[in-house]
């Protein structure tokens, strides 16, 4: 709540651009306070014996939309409520949004039946395969998705969902370094690459890495030239753990996903962060008297640039599956997508909204052009893929060791 209030009060775009998906960090804390750590456990207990299998059939063509309500699960503030209102009036239905804090929480609650929904608004790429295998999402009937051709062509056949059978892309972003250009020379960042984070000893306590084990360890791997970022070789993971742990003493590293506000506000000088955070930061988090010129972003060259996206899908036990399809289609409309982006700050995977367009329209400052991954960069991107229970556990355990103090 607090972050949003602050945000809106300094938001140059009026009531728009409230990119606080990253606020889920704060919200997870709030939820924890309210419910206590035991509650998620209990919630997770119900219905897990209910072995579901992959849902093979999509809905038939040409069905009339249901009367609703359309139930959506999504991160807080990760969709423009004006867009929701437009959808409601267009189809004469109510939309109910249940917010989740983490991707894992969404999966857990959907699997246990703690949340019933029609649309999963923001599935992580690493989870989609599991959601399909677990039978939680249904195959889409493309005849309802007339706006699908608006999507950037690379996402027509994504690695996580061949043929985009179960999902349509929502937003996408790349991982790089966000920094203050008034404190660190951009040329130096360009020359040092990922080493910038390890060399930021002048900025102790003002350096952060993403609170995500795969992202943080991948950074360490890429820095050492390892591009097989989905490795389960324990030696490589241990080396990445050792490298990231060095940051504790070297730069007194923080672990969070708040660079979108911490860099503009100046409490962080250098951070491993997502490209969209700089766009959001420039639009909504700069203190008075500070221009967006202070924000810089660097990312590795195409071929070693990690690009991530969130996707929308229809849940297999949706009560309003037709309406859910229509909603997905609505969000893929060029104008709706732009209106949504203008408030959310995370680029939709819509071809029309390329770098030239969003810069020309004033959503992104010219010097942050590299925050918009190009088609080439998307095509050659490295993707963080799911590693199975054992592989994921290797990273999770290494991460617990790092956050425990190295």
């Amino acid at each position: 709540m607090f972050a949003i209030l602050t945000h809106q009060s300094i938001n140059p775009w009026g009531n728009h651009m409230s990119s606080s998906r990253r606020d889920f960090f704060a919200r997870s804390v709030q939820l924890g306070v309210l419910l206590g750590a035991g509650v998620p456990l209990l919630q997770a207990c119900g219905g897990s014996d209910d072995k579901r299998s992959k849902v093979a059939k999509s809905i038939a063509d040409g069905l009339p939309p249901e009367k609703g309500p359309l139930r959506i699960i999504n991160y807080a503030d990760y969709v423009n409520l004006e867009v929701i209102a437009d959808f409601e009036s267009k189809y004469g239905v109510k939309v109910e949004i249940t917010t989740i804090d983490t991707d894992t929480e969404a999966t857990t609650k959907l699997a246990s039946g703690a949340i019933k929904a029609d649309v999963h608004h923001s599935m992580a790429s690493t989870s989609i395969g599991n959601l399909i295998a677990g039978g939680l999402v249904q195959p889409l009937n493309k005849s309802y998705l007339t706006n699908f051709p608006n999507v950037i062509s690379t996402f027509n056949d994504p690695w996580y969902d061949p043929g985009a059978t179960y999902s349509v892309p929502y937003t996408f972003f790349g991982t790089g370094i966000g920094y203050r250009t008034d404190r660190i020379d951009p040329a130096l960042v360009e020359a040092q690459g990922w080493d910038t984070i390890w060399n930021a000893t002048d900025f102790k306590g003002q350096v952060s890495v993403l609170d995500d084990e795969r992202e943080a360890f991948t950074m360490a791997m890429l820095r050492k030239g390892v591009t097989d970022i989905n490795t389960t070789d324990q030696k490589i993971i241990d080396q990445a753990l050792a490298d990231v742990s060095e940051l504790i003493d070297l730069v007194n590293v923080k672990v969070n996903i708040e660079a979108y506000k911490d860099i503009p506000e100046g409490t962080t000088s250098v951070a491993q962060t997502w490209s969209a955070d700089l766009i959001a930061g420039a639009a909504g988090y700069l203190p008075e008297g500070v221009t967006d010129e202070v924000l810089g972003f660097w990312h590795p060259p195409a071929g070693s640039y990690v690009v991530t996206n969130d996707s929308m899908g229809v849940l297999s036990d949706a009560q309003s599956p037709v309406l859910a399809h229509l909603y997905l289609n609505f969000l893929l409309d060029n104008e709706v997508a732009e209106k949504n982006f203008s408030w959310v700050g995370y680029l939709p995977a819509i071809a029309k909204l390329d770098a030239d367009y969003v810069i020309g329209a004033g959503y992104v400052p010219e010097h942050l052009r590299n925050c918009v991954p190009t088609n080439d960069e998307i095509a050659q991107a490295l993707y963080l893929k799911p590693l199975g229970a054992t592989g994921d556990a290797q990273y999770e355990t290494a991460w617990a060791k790092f956050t425990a103090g190295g």
Partner: protein
Amino acid sequence: MTAALPSRRGGSSRIWAAFAVPGIGWLVAFFVVSVYAVMAVAFGDVDPFLKTPIPAWNPLEWDVTTMSNVLGEVFNGYLRPVFVRTFWFVGLALLGCILVGYPVAYFAARKAGRSKGLLLAALVLPFWISYLMRMLAWTNLLQPDGFVNQVLGWFSLPDNRNWLDGDWYTVVIGLMYGYVPFFILPLYSTLERIDGRLIEAGRDLGASSMQTFIRVTLPLSVPGLMAASVITILPMFGDYYTNTYLTSGSPRTEMVGNQIENYLRNTGQPQTGASLVLILMAMLFVLMVYYMVTTIRQQRAAER
């Protein structure tokens, strides 16, 4: 008439016993069942795709592998520093609570006179604001251009410190601030009930006010001190949001609660998180038993 008495007494005692039913029901539903659910998760399995826990409700099916691994890490592995750190933080915060809270409780209970009501209201005031909001307020106060540094600047002290960059003392201060009202109130009620005649007797027998305090007031307030300590340290041990907010996730200040939160919310290893919950509970149980034994001994001593 005489024959009716026992039955009447029996009837009324049943009525009184019935008053305990809601409490017992509550305890069973929200403590016993909850703890059993945590155990079922800790000793259960995980869905390979959805990573949701598959609790083992039947104790005969319990798998203790995760628990023994976690115990190994707690005593000899990467979790050891986390536990040691947590004990240090809580211990220091408790010490701070005693140093700050005891004089306040003492003053409010014995010296405040007519302003006692006002003081009590002031002590209860923090409860009106959510703990979370109070911690968020601290992040504003402690940031580099925040109020704390401004005040330091007024006194020509170094005012460029970033208090939020992952220092242990920030977390300890945060814990102390967050929980000190919980400390003061039980202590206040004990101190207020101390028979003033005992203190007067001490003074009459020639003890100085300091000696009276040390020999009379302090020993008599030990039960309150113990209760206040228990009430404060139990939630402190499981706390994770104070740390999260005040250090922006620095690995230097990671507490047990943070590890539990991470394992339960962000990983496919809920059994590890649940095992940590049980281990922490077991440690707190030892403290609780110590508290109860001491209290019972004191009561017996008082009855003699």
